[in-house]
């Protein structure tokens, strides 16, 4: 029965909106990457390829400036984080779609990735002993605080992204919703009247989407950088 299948599918999408939207973002990113990869073999540089090369260059510069290390091993993780968060934030701008990052579970998953990336890169760069010693510096009394700060900054990372993206969508909903419920009779007139306001809010959330993706990546880099550089006494 096609009708049953369709209702089942729409029920599933409604119940697992964040998951389905994440799949959409992943499919978009993988598809774009495949297209760009195919273009690599063609002669000349296409528009898409130059966009991606520009992005890669900016990412490498960012990593080099923050970590003061060669960006090689850090590019895959942070490039993926940035692209995923960036595309997810902008996904909500398309009518009918929602930002996966407007869901706390998605941003929490991303933050947990960062939480585990810190010891991973730290141990790889400094060795296990040196990395663990970083927790008792400058003084063993600060051990609980160091561990606590690692957890709370992960929480803040997740809630920051979630709050910013969710509030953007919510604000639009509230503005339109308040107008339509309080001025029921003249709703259509007032929706037209609030159009400039909603347009402004949409532009604002567009800016927030780009800035938050950047902030998420930079903060993740700073956290990893703190884990990697913890024991360096004489920076070159």
């Amino acid at each position: 029965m096609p009708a049953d299948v369709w209702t089942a599918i729409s029920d599933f999408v409604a119940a697992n909106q964040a998951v389905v939207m994440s799949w959409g973002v992943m499919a978009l990113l993988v598809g774009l990457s495949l297209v760009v990869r195919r273009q690599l073999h063609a002669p000349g540089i296409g528009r898409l390829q130059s966009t991606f090369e520009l992005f890669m260059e900016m990412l490498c510069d960012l990593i080099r400036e923050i970590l003061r290390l060669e960006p090689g091993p850090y590019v895959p993780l942070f490039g993926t984080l940035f692209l995923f968060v960036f595309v997810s934030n902008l996904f909500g701008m398309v009518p009918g779609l929602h930002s996966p990052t407007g869901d706390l579970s998605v941003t929490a998953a991303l933050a947990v990735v960062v939480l585990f990336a810190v010891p991973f890169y730290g141990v790889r760069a400094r060795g296990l002993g040196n990395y663990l010693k970083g927790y008792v510096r400058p003084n063993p009394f600060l051990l609980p605080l160091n561990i606590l700060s690692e957890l709370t900054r992960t929480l803040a990372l997740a809630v920051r992204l979630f709050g910013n993206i969710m509030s953007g969508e919510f604000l639009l909903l509230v503005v339109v919703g308040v107008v339509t419920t309080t001025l029921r009779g003249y709703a259509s007139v007032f929706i037209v009247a609030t159009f400039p306001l909603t347009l402004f809010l949409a532009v604002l959330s567009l800016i927030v989407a780009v800035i938050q993706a950047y902030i998420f990546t930079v903060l993740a880099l700073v956290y990893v950088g703190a884990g990697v550089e913890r024991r360096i006494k004489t920076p070159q």
Partner: protein
Amino acid sequence: MDAETYLHAVRLIVAGATMAIGSIAPAIAEGRALTQALESIARQPDASGTISRTLFVGLAMVESTAIYCLVMSFIILFVK
């Protein structure tokens, strides 16, 4: 008004107050940081890249206070 409704009203008021009071200080602090950063960029446009990146990280750190308030108000609202 029964106890359940009363509790719900208190929850709403306290969550709103948490957010309202808790975002005052971060807002002032972020404004000050932004002012300083703009002044520095006006004085030394060459360093604008470093300044704005540090500004973003600093703002994120300042913002975490407001984020903890948001988490607290969520807990107040939704954890029964």
